[in-house]
C-alpha cells in the first residue's frame, strides 16, 4: 500500500498544458507543409513524381490519380442502397452558419478546384514522408512544425502556395448544443494499421485526458453521437462500417482520421480498398497525417466543438 502511494506521489501530474499553452513537439516533427513555387525551375515535376501517393500535384489532380468509384455494396446477394447516400432514417445536423459545407460523399477525389500556378499538396493524401523534399534540390517544399491540420471540407486540405489553410470551423449552434459539452464517439478501424488507432487511444491517457473536454469513446454505436473512422476502408470492412454507421442514432457526425481514412493513404487505388471513409459515411471533419499526432487529432476535435479559437 505504501508503495502504491509513493508511486502515485512520484509519478506526479502529467497532463499536457495544451490547449491552454502551445504543444511541445519535437523539432523534427513534420507538420503543415509550405510551398514556395518561386524556387521551382520551369517544367520541373520531380516532387510530384517522387510522391508515393500522388499528393503533390501541379494545377489540379496529379497524373497518377484516377477517380475511384465505389461499386454498390452487395450483401447476401442483394445490392444495398447507394453508397454514401443519405438514408431516409438519418437526420443530419445542417450547417447553416455559413461555414464551410461539410465534405459530403459526393465530393470525391479529383473534384479539386483549379488553383493558381505552382505546386500544391493534398494533405488528405500526404504521408508527411518528405520524399518530395528529398527530390527537390531547390527546397521549394518545407514541412513546418505546425500541428494544426484539421478541416471541415475535403477540398480545404489542398495546400496551395500563399494560401492559409482553412482550418475546421465549429459545428453550427444547434449541433454544438447537442455535442459541444458531451461527445460520445464510436471508433471504427476499417483497415487501419494500428498507428492511427494507437494515437487516438492515447488521447484517453492522463497525458491528454480527453475526458476533461467531455469527449469519450464508447463501446456501442447505439451509445454514440458519431463515428471516428481510421483506415482506407477495406472491402472486407465496408459492410461492418455501413452497419455501424446505421446503428448510430441521428443526428450524428463522422470524423476521418489519417491519410487512409481521408483518401486511402498509402493504399489509394488498391482494388482491395475504397479510398477512405467517404465511400460509406458523409465526413464532417478531416484530420490528416500518417498517423496524425495526438495533438493534431485533439486540435481537430476541439475546433469542431468550437472550443478553440478559429485561428
Amino acid at each position: 500500500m505504501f508503495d502504491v502511494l509513493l508511486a502515485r506521489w512520484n509519478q506526479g501530474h502529467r497532463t499536457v498544458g495544451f490547449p491552454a499553452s502551445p504543444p511541445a513537439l519535437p523539432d523534427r516533427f513534420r507538420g503543415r507543409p509550405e510551398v514556395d513555387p518561386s524556387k521551382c525551375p520551369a517544367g520541373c515535376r520531380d516532387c510530384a513524381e517522387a510522391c508515393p501517393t500522388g499528393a503533390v500535384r501541379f494545377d489540379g489532380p496529379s497524373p497518377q490519380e484516377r477517380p475511384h468509384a465505389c461499386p454498390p455494396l452487395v450483401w447476401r446477394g442483394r445490392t444495398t442502397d447507394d453508397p454514401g447516400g443519405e438514408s431516409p432514417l438519418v437526420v443530419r445536423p445542417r450547417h447553416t452558419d455559413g461555414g464551410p459545407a461539410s465534405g459530403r460523399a459526393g465530393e470525391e477525389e479529383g473534384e479539386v478546384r483549379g488553383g493558381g500556378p505552382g505546386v500544391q499538396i493534398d494533405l488528405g493524401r500526404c504521408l508527411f514522408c518528405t520524399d518530395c523534399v528529398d527530390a527537390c534540390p531547390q527546397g521549394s517544399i518545407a514541412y513546418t512544425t505546425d500541428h494544426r491540420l484539421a478541416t471541415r471540407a475535403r477540398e480545404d486540405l489542398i495546400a496551395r502556395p500563399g494560401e492559409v489553410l482553412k482550418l475546421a470551423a465549429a459545428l453550427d449552434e444547434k449541433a454544438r448544443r447537442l455535442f459541444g459539452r458531451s461527445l460520445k464517439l464510436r471508433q471504427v478501424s476499417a483497415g487501419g494499421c494500428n498507428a492511427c488507432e494507437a494515437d487516438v487511444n492515447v488521447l484517453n491517457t492522463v497525458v491528454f485526458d480527453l475526458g476533461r473536454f467531455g469527449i469519450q469513446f464508447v463501446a456501442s454505436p447505439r451509445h454514440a453521437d458519431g463515428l471516428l473512422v481510421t483506415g482506407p476502408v477495406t472491402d472486407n470492412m465496408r459492410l461492418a462500417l455501413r452497419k455501424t454507421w446505421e446503428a448510430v442514432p441521428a443526428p450524428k457526425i463522422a470524423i476521418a482520421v489519417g491519410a487512409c481514412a481521408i483518401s486511402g493513404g498509402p493504399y489509394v487505388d488498391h482494388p482491395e480498398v475504397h479510398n477512405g471513409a467517404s465511400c460509406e459515411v458523409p465526413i464532417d471533419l478531416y484530420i490528416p497525417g500518417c498517423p496524425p499526432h495526438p495533438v493534431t487529432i485533439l486540435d481537430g476535435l476541439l475546433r469542431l466543438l468550437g472550443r478553440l479559437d478559429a485561428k
Partner: protein
Amino acid sequence: MTSPLTLHNGETCAAGEVPLLAAAEFREEVLQAVEGGRRIAALFGRPAGGDRVRLAAVLANGAEGTLALTSADVEKSFHSLTPDCPQAHLFEREIAEQFGLVPEGHPWMKPVRFPRGGAAVTDFFRVRGEEVHEVAVGPVHAGVIEPGHFRFQCHGEEVFHLEISLGYQHRGVERAMIEGREARRIHLIETLAGDTSIGHAMAYARAMEALSGARVPARAQALRGIALELERLANHTGDLAALANDVGYLPTASYGGRIRGDFLNLTALLCGSRFGRGLVRPGGVRFDLDPTRAAELVERLDAATRDVGEAVNLLWETPSVMARFEETGSISREVCEQLGLVGPAARACGVGRDVRHEFPYGIYRFFQIPMSTWETGDVFARAHVRWLEIQRSIPFIREQVKALPEGPARADAAHPLEAGRLCVSLVEGWRGEICHVAMTDAAGRLAAYKIVDPSFHNWTGLAMALRGQQISDFPLCNKSFNLSYCGHDL
C-alpha cells in the same frame, strides 16, 4: 534426396540454387527438417507458369543460425503437411486461398483473408449440446482496436473452443509490392503493421541492401538498433499497462499508458514521428543522432526508466493482479513448439526463440542482449518476459548511444537490385520474428515478396490459450498476446 540450400539471415543466393524437388520429396524434406528441430519461418507459393505453383519453404534452425530453403512445383492439389506438422496449417490455407490449390488431407480448410471481398463469414466450428452456447464478437470491438471476429463455444462461463476469423484488414500489400510503384513500397512496409514500422522497415531495408550489394554504415546499424529497441520498449510498456487495465489495476494502467508515450516520443526525438516513419531506408537511416540530441535522449530515457520500473513493479507486488495473471491462458511448451509460436509468446513457454540471438543481424552481431524466457506459459509469463525485455533493452540503447560509430548514417548511392537473386531477412520485432523473403527476376525487378508477420504464427496460440478458460478472461488473454490484425491480413 538433395540436401536443402542453407543461408544465413540476410544472405542472398541465386534464385536457381534453391533445390526443386518433386512434391512428395518436398513434403518429406519439410517433415524431416521439422522433426530435426527446424521450424517453418515461411511457406508460400508463387506462379510458376501455366497452372503450376512453386511452393517454397524457409526452415529455420535457431541452434545453427541457418535457414534451409527448398521448393517444389505443384498443380491443382498437394498432400497437406498439416496432419503431420500443425505449424503448416495457416500457411497451407493461405496457399489454397491464393492459388486455388487443394491441400489434400488438411483438417481445417477455411479462408484466411477473404481476398475476393465480401463479409468475412465462414462456417464456424460448432459445439452442440445442452447448455452449450455460442458467443460472437467483432469485427467492430468495444475498444479502439483493429477488426477481427472471434467465435466462442461456451459451456456456462467455460470456453470449449475459440475460433478466430480475420481478413477484415486485407489491403493487398504483397500484391502491391510486386505490381505497384516502387516509390510506394517503403510506405506499404511501414504501414503493413503500423505499430511495427521500424521492425518491418528494417527487414525490408536489409533485404534490399543484400539484393543490391549495398554496404550499410556502422552508424546506421547502431541507430537502427536503437530505434528497434525503442519500439519494443514503447509496445511492451503499453502492453503491461493494458494488462493492468484488463484486471482493473488502475495505477499501472494509467502510469504505463503515459510512459509508453514517453518512449514513443524518444523515437519522435530521433526522427519526428512517434512510430519511426521515415527513419529506416535502404542504405541506412534518414536521421542522424547529433551529440546534443543524444544527450537529451539518454536523459529522457533515464527518467522513463525510473518511472517504468516503479509502475511495473507494482504489478508483481499486488496479490489481486497476480491472482488474475497466474495460471490464466496457459500454453504448454509442447503446444508452443507444435504451433511454431515466436517472440515473447514462445519465450514465455520457455522456448528460447529470439532472432537477435539465433540469427544475429546488423548491430546485434556485435552487441548481444540476453534472451529473456519464463517457463509457465501463462498470462503472467507473457507479462514478465516483457518486463525482463524492457530491462534489457534500456542498457542496450544507452550503450549504443554512448559508443555510436563515427561516419555517415546512410550509404551514398542506391544500387540497382541484382538479377535472379533471393534473400531471406529476419528481424526480431517486438511481437517476434518478422520474416521477409524477396526475389528478383532476370531483369532485376522484384518478382516475389513474401511477408510473415509474427502474428501469423501466433494467432492460433491465442485460440489454444483460451481453451478451458473463463470467457471473461478473453480480454486479458488477448492482450497478453497483443497480436496484429493488419500484419496478419496484409
